[in-house]
């Protein structure tokens, strides 16, 4: 026994001297695929980028798998959505990453929300009676292309600080992305313009930035409170309000059960639309602009059907 303890200790300390591999290209880990996509726009092939969560996964409920610890262990930069979106799973991963570079507040930690425009910052007293409320504001802010631009800019600044040799490339890539996005926004505005002011219902509060940008009016939610599953009484109220106001469209995320939305749609003669809130949520949403292309087209087709114009 004595020898095995000794061997264990010796083994541990022998390995403590093992050299860490020399830094090749900057390794960036993002929490979501949206941030990974924006990083790719800015970085091109100058860094390696990988997301922890998949686009078809609810980003609030990702499991803190040990395999993520390995990814974070060798990362030079961690980019998080912030606003407590990842509070249920990211902190223990960062602690266990044994990587001083990406600890909160360190040079290699970027909270992408810091420069973005955040909606629904609660005022007054906040309690959990409001459900799983985000006290710092709604974390689904990447769904406004204007915020996509601001996030990309923050990533450009961070990458330029960490890898100054490639700063001109990052600046050029950002400029190209900015122009591509501006052109795409014109396209999306033209497609969705006729439906400005249309009232819709969403499952979770995932779409305030998207609806704000494209002028849709969210009049209710399938969830009675954020994070609380649908209840019969709330569903009945919602059906009544939707009928009264002639609301026909229910937006849901791919990771929610469509049973309740479907029955609401049957009652109201409306339609359930599964939009993807993240890059990678469907195979067509290959990058940040493709995500909006996909959602905008889907939404315009559905709005055309329910509004009749």
């Amino acid at each position, binding site marked *: *026994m004595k020898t*095995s*303890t*000794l061997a*264990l*200790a*010796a*083994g*541990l*300390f022998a*390995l*403590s001297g093992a050299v*860490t591999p020399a830094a090749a290209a900057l390794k960036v880990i993002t929490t979501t695929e949206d941030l990974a996509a924006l990083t790719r726009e800015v970085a091109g092939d100058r860094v390696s980028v990988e997301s922890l969560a998949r686009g*078809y*996964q*609810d980003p609030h*409920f*990702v*499991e*803190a*798998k*040990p*395999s993520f*610890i*390995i990814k974070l*262990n*060798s990362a030079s930069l961690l980019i998080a959505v912030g606003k*407590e979106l990842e509070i*249920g*799973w990211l902190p*223990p991963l960062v*602690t266990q990453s*044994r990587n*001083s570079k990406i*600890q*909160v*507040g360190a*040079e290699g930690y970027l909270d992408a929300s810091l420069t973005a*425009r*955040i909606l629904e*910052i609660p005022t007054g007293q906040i309690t*959990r009676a409001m459900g*799983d409320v985000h006290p710092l504001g709604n974390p689904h802010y990447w769904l406004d292309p*204007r*915020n996509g631009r601001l996030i990309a800019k923050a990533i*450009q*600044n*961070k990458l*330029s*600080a960490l890898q*100054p040799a490639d700063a001109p490339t990052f*600046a050029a890539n*950002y*400029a190209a992305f900015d*122009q591509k996005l*501006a052109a795409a926004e014109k396209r999306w505005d033209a497609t969705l313009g006729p439906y400005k002011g249309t009232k819709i219902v969403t499952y979770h509060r995932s779409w305030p930035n998207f609806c704000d940008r494209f002028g849709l009016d969210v009049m209710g939610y399938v969830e009675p409170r954020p*994070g609380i*599953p649908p209840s019969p009484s709330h569903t009945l109220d919602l059906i009544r309000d939707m009928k009264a106001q002639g609301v026909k469209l229910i937006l849901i995320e791919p*990771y929610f*059960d469509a049973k309740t939305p479907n029955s609401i749609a049957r009652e109201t003669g409306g339609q359930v639309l599964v939009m993807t809130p993240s890059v990678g949520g469907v195979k067509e949403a290959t990058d940040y602009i493709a995500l909006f292309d996909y959602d905008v087209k889907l939404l315009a087709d559905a709005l055309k059907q329910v509004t009749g114009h």
Partner: protein
Amino acid sequence: MRRVVLIVSCAVLLVSAARAQAQEASPPPPVAPAAPSPSPEPTPPPPEPAAPAQAGPAASKVFNPDMAVIGNFTGAAGKNEVNPRPSLNLEEAEASFQAIVDPYARADFFLTFSNEEVGVEEGFITFTSLPSGFLLKAGKLKADFGKVNTLHSHILPWVDRPLVMTNLLGGDEGIADAGLSLSRLFPNPVLFLEATGEVYRGEVGDVFTAPRRQDVLLVGHLRAYRDLGESTNVEVGGSVARGGSAAGPGAHNLLYGADATLRWRPLRRAIYHRLLLRSELMWSRRESGAAEVAGTGFVPGQTLRAFGLYASGEYQFARRWFAGARYDTSERANEPDQRDRGGSFLLTYWPSEFSQIRAQARRTTYAEGSTANELLFQFLFSIGAHGAHPF
């Protein structure tokens, strides 16, 4: 010899930690502030100014740790002659305080308030910035022995703790003591591999005792994990613990453990379905001292070997509902010829992420021959900061 190694190890660690801090404290290489991009670019629409950080009185609270309190209220019905639980009991109120200490460390405190006492369940500092991929914890810790020993009671998938923990790990508290824990990852392309070595003072219920300073408790744990696809993963571990025995100076008690966990959680339906299967096996070897027993006379010391295990499964079948089952069998550490057996069925309901209600139907057959059929129930509720979900 062993002690020397220990002391040297700790010294090496402290020196290297100090060196790392000194390095980081020295003026960092000048990093050019992100230069404004020279290329002309369409300015994005000005964002609405973020809500100003609350200044004044609230600013003094900015550095307060994240605080939460978790209530664990349990009840029991039915008859148990061997190990009865109270009919109604606020078993534990756990207060947690967690924050980042400085650029090099974070600290976690878990204080428990039960009927008669206040205790430190855990209270430790974690150095997150050590060189060479080490993670060091110092303070009062739950020993990294197997799985169930490391889990706080509000995280368990049951109301009670398995018989093997009661019989071999010294009761519901398990092995928790003042000590140091050092762990390291061994990155490789095949699996997640983590080795942990720990030193504790060595006073743990009836399991280990440390009348002399050198009778420290040593714990070693090796943990391997692998993803079998994006929804399924498997984890296995092996543990060993060796500490002083009450049999006398120089005598040792030993514990070995093996654990295996299989998890399944489909990413697209992560909030509706999941499955967790887990089993832990434990072997205990205790030295009993020679003793004068009335009537029998002098009884020489002997080695007592006992074995126990549990196998448990939990399945989430709807957003708020979990069903589970557990099988228990365990010999008693000090009376290895006495074996207890048990089985349980569980049903758990989650009104929200912050509260849960659980019922457990449990049948235990004790070595004495008596059988206890009980219905246990539990209300768990949490207020305060949003803690991370356990993995």
